[in-house]
């Protein structure tokens, strides 16, 4: 029994699979969100130094991690779409960009609102903040470049170039706090050493990270399905879906 590895790389079968997956991820993300917010606001103690302002961490860090992670995933699928000329991969990369841009904006916004009371300023041209801002422009550039080109296939190729070129910015963001060591503090959570955070604060934050990951999957799959319908509207299977009213 040969496994057909590429069964779900066809837009039609992926459309049905994604349709089943979206509610699952919506359910998981809502549960994790409620638990994460509960731990963040009602379990985690007051910070001895920052008082209550540190509770912004429960959206600032997840948003920042997601903004970087989603960019890498977007560049990966854009690269696959460019290399193998698979339309669904490029559709998926196009679907990721808005969510990535949103998380980057949230990371910048919550960072500014956290910086005002703690650093005394909304914005400073710090290495971490500036590279995150560049990430935001990269997302916007990717989306507007694709919107500017009529033929979706050519737009995919152009978008893939900007996505792949922009990937270099992700390690820059991650290591910016060590290389330039400007205002933004270093990584309090990393894979190779114990986290410099109280456990309840850490668990609350990690639950929120998982919640934002599940949310991203749900929203991106949902947007991919709409993009598939838009691009495959001339096909028979979409016409049949529409007749059945199951669009």
């Amino acid at each position, binding site marked *: 029994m040969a496994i057909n590895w590429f069964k779900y790389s066809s837009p039609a079968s992926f459309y049905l699979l994604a349709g089943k997956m979206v509610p699952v991820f919506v359910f998981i993300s809502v549960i994790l969100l409620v638990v994460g917010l509960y731990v963040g*606001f*009602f379990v985690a*103690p*007051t910070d001895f130094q920052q*008082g*209550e*302002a540190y*509770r*912004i961490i429960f*959206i*600032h860090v997840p*948003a920042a991690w997601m903004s970087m992670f989603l960019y890498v995933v977007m560049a990966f699928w854009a690269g696959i779409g460019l290399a193998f000329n698979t339309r669904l991969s490029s559709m998926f990369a196009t679907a990721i960009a*808005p*969510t990535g841009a*949103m998380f980057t*904006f*949230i990371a910048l*916004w*919550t960072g500014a*609102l*956290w910086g*005002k*009371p703690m650093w005394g300023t909304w914005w400073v041209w710090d290495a971490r903040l500036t590279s995150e801002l560049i990430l935001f422009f990269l997302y916007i550039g990717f989306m507007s470049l694709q919107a500017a080109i009529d033929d979706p296939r050519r737009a995919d190729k152009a978008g893939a170039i900007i996505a792949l070129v922009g990937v270099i910015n992700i390690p820059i963001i991650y290591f910016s706090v060590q290389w330039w060591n400007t205002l933004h503090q270093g990584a309090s959570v990393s894979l190779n050493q114990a986290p410099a955070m109280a456990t309840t604060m850490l668990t609350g934050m990690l639950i929120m990270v998982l919640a934002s990951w599940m*949310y991203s999957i749900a*929203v991106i799959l*949902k*947007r991919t399905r*709409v993009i598939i*319908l*838009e691009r495959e*509207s001339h096909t028979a299977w*979409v016409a049949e879906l*529409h007749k059945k009213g199951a*669009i």
Partner: protein
Amino acid sequence: MIWSSWSEFFSMGGYGLYVWGSYVVTFICIAGEILLISNRRRTLEKQYSHIEDLDNNETKNETTS
């Protein structure tokens, strides 16, 4: 329970503006994103049923003329 009263909870130790300013904007962004997608899907369905009506009229005309 850390908070002794709701008003204390909302004042967030004096940082209420910053904490709730972050959370409210975040949830507005998320709600906006979800609405944008369902809106995009609705316009697609409208276009599609419009195309379908045109097809039906076309076939009807052919048969009558």
